[in-house]
Structure formats: structure tokens, C-alpha cells
């Protein structure tokens, strides 16, 4: 199959599967997802290998290329994100098949699959998009699917969190949309062409401000983060894994692409430093709040706020060697690790009936594989070798020192220490003995899924050379 055909499959297949899951419903919906998932993993791998070899993967939809038509173009970062999406998506598909539904999901089984597959299609479309308007459409598809995933348990906390998420996401999307209008004043929507056409001035500055704020709200960066922890904790665990691992990463991918291609030339140094400082604020504030949580899922959600903050460092670090691959390595390593940890949290909820930290005492004895997955995922969050998080932070540290901005290196180290704090909080509770806690056994193969995802995020550090080469393909 040609690369163009694979690119089309990556978007059309999950859409078809979503429609099939919706029409079939019930137990059959899981079949649609589980049949599509391995194909999408294969497709993502084929495309990533092609991009890594330096081949061009582009596809003009309907034969109409840029600037008038829609052109898909896959760069290294998009290919890596698509691969991470596929791996997390496959893990979630398998996990969701065995997951015992609660709330609304219990009354109407199969409801998880249509929004899940719709989300997958949106994420793949986002990775392939090369113009600012297609990115907007993909972001909207992702946001709507994500909001539906938050509501699935159907309880008051879930629907209220989803409503807040919807309002924030739509205000963010509207800001982005108006920014697209300003950028179109330069005569094109294509990212590469915009990079050549954009001139500093009022329209470019307004576009920068609107699009950056809009995407920061969608990515839950401090101070626009308050919607995320309730939404990600109220969602069913397989959905939380998708939301924290992939959805937040998607809007960050758009933000970083825009900055690299267009805004880097427009913004002054002081503004870049200020945005980097907001990233550090996210790292510190998210980590501190994670340390104060008394429940496992909100703790993991606040940790997402912290981890996303690191990516804003790419704005001030800009073109420094290692910054771009380091940032995206962090993005995908975090996606895999956080998905693994939320799935593990789901298993703990199912086995012990509660995710309050004192209630997970004894988890290490009852379900060692799951706690092991939490620990390995935690290694990536802390940035310890040989995890992907370590390699990513190493590259970012190198970029910070090389460009003479040593203060960002301090933020990276402080964030790692704080992450160690909240990861050890989880493990300390999980390893405490609790003899009288009621325990429902979970299926061992389901314990293997978070462990598998966590191990991939751990081993990414060992596959550093090919991954960095892939991420540098088409990098600015």
C-alpha cells in the first residue's frame, strides 16, 4: 500500500469503526474498535518508518493541494504522535473490552466506543494536517469526542466537569479561529507558506496572542488549568488515559508547530521568556497540587498539568539543538506513561473499590503487576534513566545550557524532584500492608496492558537514536 493510502486509512478507518460501533452498539461495538486498532498501529508504524527514512508523506485530498485545497503532510513530530496515539489507542481498546462498566456505561454498554474511535480519527487528522484551518477542525473533532468521554459515567461530577471543559474548550477554539482569520491576511493557511509570508505587525501579534491563549486553555496550562483535574478524574479510566495522554498533547502539538513555523519570527525575546515562565509555573503549581491530592486519579491529573508545562520551554529554547526532539520525546513518553498509569488506576479502582490513597494500601501485594506499571510510568514522569522521559529531559537540559538559558535547566530539575515526590506518595501507599481490605480480583491479562504501555515508555530511552532521527525529520 502506498503512503497516501495509509494516510487515508489512518483517518477514515477509525471514523468508519466509530459509525459501526454506534450502529451495532452493545458488546458488538467492542469488535469494531478491536478490529480497527491493530490496523491503525500497523499504519502508524509504516508511516513513521517512512518519515524516519526521510521519505515525504503528503497527500492532496481530492487532488487539490495547498493553497486552495487540503493537503496532508506528515512530519517527524506528527508521525511520532500518531504512533503514540496508535499504541495508547490499542492498549485502551483491549483494556476497555475487559473493563467493568459503571454508571451510564453499565446501563448502555458499548457507549464508550464511538467517541473513542472518533477521538482517534481526530488525533490522526491533526497529526497529518499541515494548515492552520485543518488543525482547527481536527481540534474541534478531538474536543467534542473528549467531552463525550468525560460524561460517560453520567454522575453529577462528571457532567459538570464536562460542561466546564466544553466552555473552556470552545472559548479556546474561538480564539484560535479568529487567529486563523488574522493569519489568512498573509494570503495562505499552509503552515510552511505562512512561515515565509508572515510579517511582524499588529495582525501577526493579535494572531499570536489569540492562538497561544486559546491553545493554552485547551492544554490546561497554568493559569487556565482548573477545568482539567475534575474532567480527567471523573471520566472512566480508559477515557482518562486517552484524555491525559493524548488529548492534551494534541493541542500542545498544534501550539508548538505554530510557534516553530510562524510565531518564532514574530515574537520578541521578552514574550518568549514570559511564555517559558508560564510553562515553569505549570510544572511547579501542577506538581505541588499533585502532592496535595488525596485520591489517585486527581493526583495523576494534576501531574498532567505539570508535565505539559515542560513543553512550553520549547518556545524560549526555540532552535537550540535538541530542544525540538527533546520536547516531542517528552510528549510521547508522557502520553504512554500517563495512559499506563491511568489504566493502572482504573484496575486499582476496580479491585479495591476506591482510589483514595489510604484505600490503596495492600495494592502491591494483591496486584503487583499494576503497581509495577505505576512505578515504571513514574520513572518517566521523574525523568530517571533509561526512560523516555530521561532522554527527553537530557536533550532539553542540553538545549537550555547550550543556548545560555540555564534557568530553564533549574526548572527541569525541580520538576523532576517534585514528580519523584508524588510518585513515591502513590507507591508508599500501595506498599503499605492492609489485611482487612475487601479485594475483588482483576484479570491478569488486563494488568498486562498498563504494564506493557509503561514498559514501552521506559524502553524509549534505549531507542533514542532512531526516535531522535524521526523527530528531527521536517523539524524547523
Amino acid at each position: 500500500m502506498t503512503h497516501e493510502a495509509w494516510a487515508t486509512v489512518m483517518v477514515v478507518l477509525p471514523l468508519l469503526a466509530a459509525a459501526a460501533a454506534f450502529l451495532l452498539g452493545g458488546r458488538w461495538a467492542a469488535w469494531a474498535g478491536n478490529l480497527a486498532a491493530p490496523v491503525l498501529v500497523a499504519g502508524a508504524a509504516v508511516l513513521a518508518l517512512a518519515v524516519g527514512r526521510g521519505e515525504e508523506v503528503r497527500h492532496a485530498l481530492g487532488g487539490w493541494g495547498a493553497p486552495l485545497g487540503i493537503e496532508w503532510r506528515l512530519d517527524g513530530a506528527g508521525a511520532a504522535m500518531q504512533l503514540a496515539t496508535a499504541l495508547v489507542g490499542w492498549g485502551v481498546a483491549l483494556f476497555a473490552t475487559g473493563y467493568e462498566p459503571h454508571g451510564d456505561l453499565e446501563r448502555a454498554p458499548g457507549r464508550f466506543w464511538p467517541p473513542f474511535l472518533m477521538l482517534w480519527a481526530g488525533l490522526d487528522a491533526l497529526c497529518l494536517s499541515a494548515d492552520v484551518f485543518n488543525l482547527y477542525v481536527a481540534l474541534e473533532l478531538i474536543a467534542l469526542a473528549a467531552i463525550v468521554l468525560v460524561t460517560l459515567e453520567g454522575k453529577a461530577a462528571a457532567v459538570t466537569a464536562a460542561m466546564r471543559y466544553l466552555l473552556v474548550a470552545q472559548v479556546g477554539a474561538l480564539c484560535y479561529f479568529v487567529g486563523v482569520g488574522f493569519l489568512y491576511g498573509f494570503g495562505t493557511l499552509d503552515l510552511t507558506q505562512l512561515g515565509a509570508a508572515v510579517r511582524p505587525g499588529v495582525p501577526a501579534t493579535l494572531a499570536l496572542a489569540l492562538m497561544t491563549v486559546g491553545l493554552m486553555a485547551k492544554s490546561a496550562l497554568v493559569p487556565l488549568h482548573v477545568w482539567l483535574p475534575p474532567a480527567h478524574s471523573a471520566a472512566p479510566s480508559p477515557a482518562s488515559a486517552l484524555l491525559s495522554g493524548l488529548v492534551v498533547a494534541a493541542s500542545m502539538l498544534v501550539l508548538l508547530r505554530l510557534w516553530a513555523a510562524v510565531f518564532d519570527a514574530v515574537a520578541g525575546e521578552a514574550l518568549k521568556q514570559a511564555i517559558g515562565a508560564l510553562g515553569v509555573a505549570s510544572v511547579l503549581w501542577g506538581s505541588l497540587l499533585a502532592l496535595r491530592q488525596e485520591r489517585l486519579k486527581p493526583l495523576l491529573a494534576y501531574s498532567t498539568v505539570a508535565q505539559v508545562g515542560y513543553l512550553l520551554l520549547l518556545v524560549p529554547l526555540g532552535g537550540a539543538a535538541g530542544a525540538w526532539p527533546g520536547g516531542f520525546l517528552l510528549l510521547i513518553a508522557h502520553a504512554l506513561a500517563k495512559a499506563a498509569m491511568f489504566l493502572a488506576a482504573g484496575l486499582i479502582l476496580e479491585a479495591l473499590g476506591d482510589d483514595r490513597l489510604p484505600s490503596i494500601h495492600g495494592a502491591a501485594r494483591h496486584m503487583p503487576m499494576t503497581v509495577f506499571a505505576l512505578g515504571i510510568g513514574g520513572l518517566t514522569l521523574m525523568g530517571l534513566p533509561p526512560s523516555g522521559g530521561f532522554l527527553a529531559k537530557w536533550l532539553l537540559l542540553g538545549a537550555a545550557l547550550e543556548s545560555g538559558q540555564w534557568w530553564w535547566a533549574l526548572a527541569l530539575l525541580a520538576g523532576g524532584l517534585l514528580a519523584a515526590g508524588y510518585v513515591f506518595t502513590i507507591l508508599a501507599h500501595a506498599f503499605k500492608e492492609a489485611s482487612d481490605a475487601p479485594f475483588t480480583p482483576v484479570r491478569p491479562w488486563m494488568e498486562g496492558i498498563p504494564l506493557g504501555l509503561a514498559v514501552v515508555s521506559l524502553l524509549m530511552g534505549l531507542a533514542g537514536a532512531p526516535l531522535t532521527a524521526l523527530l528531527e525529520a521536517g523539524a524547523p
Partner: protein
Amino acid sequence: MDTMADAAPIFAVAGALILVVGLFGVFDRPDLLGKIIALNVAASGAFTFLIGSAPVDEGGGPDPVLQALVLTGIVISISVTAYALSLLRRVADEAGRTTLDDEPEAGPEESPEESPEESPEDGGAEGIRDA
């Protein structure tokens, strides 16, 4: 066509003002229905602004690409509004209120149909209160 080109800046300025008023409403209105309507007002403002500020081609006609963008934006806005309204009904049913107040009200939270389901399995959805 001249008259339309002359009127364009008026549309752009009016659109920008409507956008700002709408965004203010989203943050200012306490009730969710008000917020959703304000979001629509803001979106209408954004669309008017974009059409009004569109570059005019050589024949003096409107720019087709920007029209297509706004049309797509309108479609998305309608879908989101429809979904937001149905979600609002769920919030009213489940939480017993139509606001986003963080503090759950004591009364409706303990409604009879909720109480029997107060089992530990609800952990994920229950009691999520920010630190």
C-alpha cells in the same frame, strides 16, 4: 460592489465588539444557559468580524476561502451548541442545578435516586474537589 467594500470595516468593527461582548458574557453569566448563548453571540461576532475584514479580490468580490472557513465555523458552532444544550439538561438532571458552582448544594446531591448508588465503585466520579 463599492458599497459592500465601503461597509466592510463597519462589519469588522461591529463583529469585534460583538465578540468581546459575547466573551464577557461567557465569563460573567452565572447560569449555564446564559453562558451557552453568550458563546453563540461571541461566535457570531467572530464570523461577522472575519467576513468584514476579508481581503477583497480584484473584481471587488468577497474572498471565497474565508467564506468557506466561516461556513465551516458556523456548522461546528451549531453542532457544539446542540451538544452543549443536551449536556445542560444532563447537568440539571444529575446535579439539580444549572450553574457551575464548585460547591455542590446539599439538597439535590442527596436526591433519592442517587443515594442507593453511593457505593465505593463510584470513586472515580465522586468527590472531586480541588485542593
